[in-house]
């Protein structure tokens, strides 16, 4: 059993959890994730490890409540335990000193972006970060991201914070103002990553993305998480979740995320009657 040591609310439906899991904390590298299962009949869901505290033997997860499992987690209290935390899984982010790095995070994708940005900065890169969300209250981890970045730009669709517009507008502005980047890391909803990649490809900036396909085991056994990268089929849980964004077939990823949409809706309706509105917020192909 893995105990919940701390929980706090970061935004509407967005919570930070710290679980005791000392082996995972010790061996984890930025970019890796865990599989979480919260009770005996629970689903196995993948969540990025946002941070670790080796001394405390704990890992931090930042989770947006979008469906049955994540909503149930939102009800958990400090001291509660869950039966499964498997990890760290996936290939770590490739961290290297390349020069100037552009980190782009959208919504809950800022959670996995944070460890990557910090590692890139620690490796001696100049880090410019752009955080985007629909509205100000959905921008998470702004303070931590500010520490991990040399420059930080915030964009909101409705203009409630930072620049009004999309992250792609902000990228274009930077480049128009003569900024150059050797590497981009983009994490967020598939639709956002898709458009960031279309732009960075035009601009000639190599781009890493972190994909969020549906998973079951997370160990390479089922192939549920397969994604097309270039002309190869990869298993995101083993080969990824990070890939060369210019080669990823985002349309396929977004389609596949909808596989269980009607079942998920049913499960959710069974679980809580007021939750229908939340389901709408997760459209456009998955939560992050």
């Amino acid at each position: 059993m893995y105990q919940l040591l701390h929980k706090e609310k970061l935004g509407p439906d967005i919570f930070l959890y710290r679980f005791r899991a000392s082996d995972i904390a010790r061996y984890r590298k930025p970019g890796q994730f865990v599989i979480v299962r919260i009770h005996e009949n629970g689903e196995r869901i993948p969540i990025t490890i946002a941070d670790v505290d080796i001394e405390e033997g704990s890992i931090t997860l930042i989770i947006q409540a979008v469906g049955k499992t994540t909503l149930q987690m939102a009800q958990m209290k400090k001291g509660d335990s869950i039966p499964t935390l498997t990890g760290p899984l996936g290939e770590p982010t490739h961290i290297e000193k390349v020069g100037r790095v552009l980190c782009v995070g959208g919504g809950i994708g800022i959670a996995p972006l944070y460890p990557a940005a910090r590692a890139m900065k620690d490796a001696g890169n100049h880090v410019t970060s752009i955080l985007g969300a629909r509205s100000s209250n959905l921008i998470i981890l702004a303070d931590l991201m500010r520490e991990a970045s040399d420059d930080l730009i915030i964009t909101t669709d409705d203009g409630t914070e930072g620049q009004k517009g999309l992250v792609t507008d902000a990228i274009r502005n930077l480049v128009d103002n003569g900024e150059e980047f050797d590497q981009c890391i983009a994490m967020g909803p598939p639709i956002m990553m898709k458009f960031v990649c279309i732009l960075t490809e035009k601009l000639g900036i190599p781009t890493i993305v972190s994909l969020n396909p549906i998973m079951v085991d997370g160990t390479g056994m089922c192939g549920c998480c397969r994604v097309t990268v270039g002309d190869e089929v990869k298993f995101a849980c083993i080969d990824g979740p990070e890939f060369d964004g210019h080669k990823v077939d985002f349309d396929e990823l977004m389609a596949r995320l909808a596989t269980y949409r009607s079942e998920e809706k049913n499960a959710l309706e069974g679980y809580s009657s007021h939750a229908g509105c939340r389901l709408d917020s997760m459209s456009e192909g998955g939560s992050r």
Partner: protein
Amino acid sequence: MNAKERMKIPPVDMPEQDPKERVSNLDEVPLGYTPEMAMMEAKRCIQCKTAFCIEGCPVGIDIPGFIKLIEDGDFKGAARKMKERNLLPAMCGRVCPQEEQCQLFCTIGKVRKNPCESVMIGKLERFIADWDREQGEFEQPPSVKSSGRRVAVIGAGPAGLTVAGDLVKFGHEVIVFEALHKAGGVLVYGIPEFRLPKKIVQSEVDYLEKIGVEFRYDHVIGKTIPVRKIVDDFDAVFIGTGAGLPRFMRVDGENLLGVLSANEYLTRANLMKAYDFPEADTPIVKGKKVITVGGGNVAMDCARTALRMGAERSLIVYRRAEEQMPARLEEIHHAKEEGVEFHLLQNPVRLVGDDRGWIKGAEVIKMELGEPDSSGRRRPVPIEGSEFIENTDALIVAIGNSPNPLVPNSFPDLEVTRWGGIVVNEITGQTSVPGVFAGGDIVLGAATVILAMGHGRRAARAMNLYLSSGRWVDLDSALDLSRAEVH
């Protein structure tokens, strides 16, 4: 009763759930023998002086020995005899391909010129194992002095469980690291409930726990803990990580929604209890018409599971003929009884989707049998121009699994074959790394439960010798000489 009279007794059928009824539940299909049935079936064994049946059993159970005890009504004794050699009889009795193993060699089958009429060794084995479990008595194995040696077992499938049980009995401390949240490997995530009830697997795992095996779940070795660290921290290591890598057909449209691997389908249905959705949280693809591609046990399991998940039609599409299907006869028979349709000598070449990206059909080409290939089976050859579209809402790819690459990939010192199996000494299970042994599907590729157990058994003996002697070189010859004393 003399041998002639015994030979005249027809095989005792095991009662089964009615096919019409059973497709709407998950209960086991064969219902088991009553004590009277078992004793009657036991009478059919003529207690051969040279019991060829034993040769056919990969773990060498004293078959006439335990059958005689059943005939005499000494079920406790029979159970004890069987467990000398087989730690997991309730499972083997159910899932061994007996008609290719013990029962293939049985004298009675030969006399009656039909291996299906051999002594029903597997059914008797199942009866005894079930009887024994239902007694609920726990027999503590004779206590042995602790050796002070620590062993890590990676993977809790039949191979790993066997090694763990044997080594604990030799007095070593054993920790089993399992990637998933339950022990049993394919027995829990792959083979469906209606063929192998999960409570049986659980009771075997409970037994191992009671005799001192420690289980660490949610540990993906090579990720959660580096393989190197496990090798350094323990006196010996056994790798039994199975053949968990699903193969796909590599045809267009394979990533459409509604197309999944057998592993995914069965894992959702079994381990994650999707049959109980939304009580259990994991959903599963439910088609009205489901195609399963493949002809092995795995394909039969998928096609039969699809019926239980509510499919109106469940089709097997297989590129060879029925005689060449690798599935057990019993599975094929059960599948047919339940209404699974067999579309033989056909092969999907392309999958077609609708505008939402869901599969709506498979383009299938007809095949004919040509010259024999390297496996000795006549090779299926496509008939040009015979393509047609088979409509479907879901398609399950059950064309095989390869060795799980996770541990070998993260531990380059380990020698592997071209197709990814770990290279071992066949007698001892020794790998290219001193102190590290391997067995089961990670060595053989997708094989059988009993072969995995046989591997585990042999490796356990070699590991025990290695742990006590520290001898790595020529372990196999040392083992041969001391076989009697070790066993």
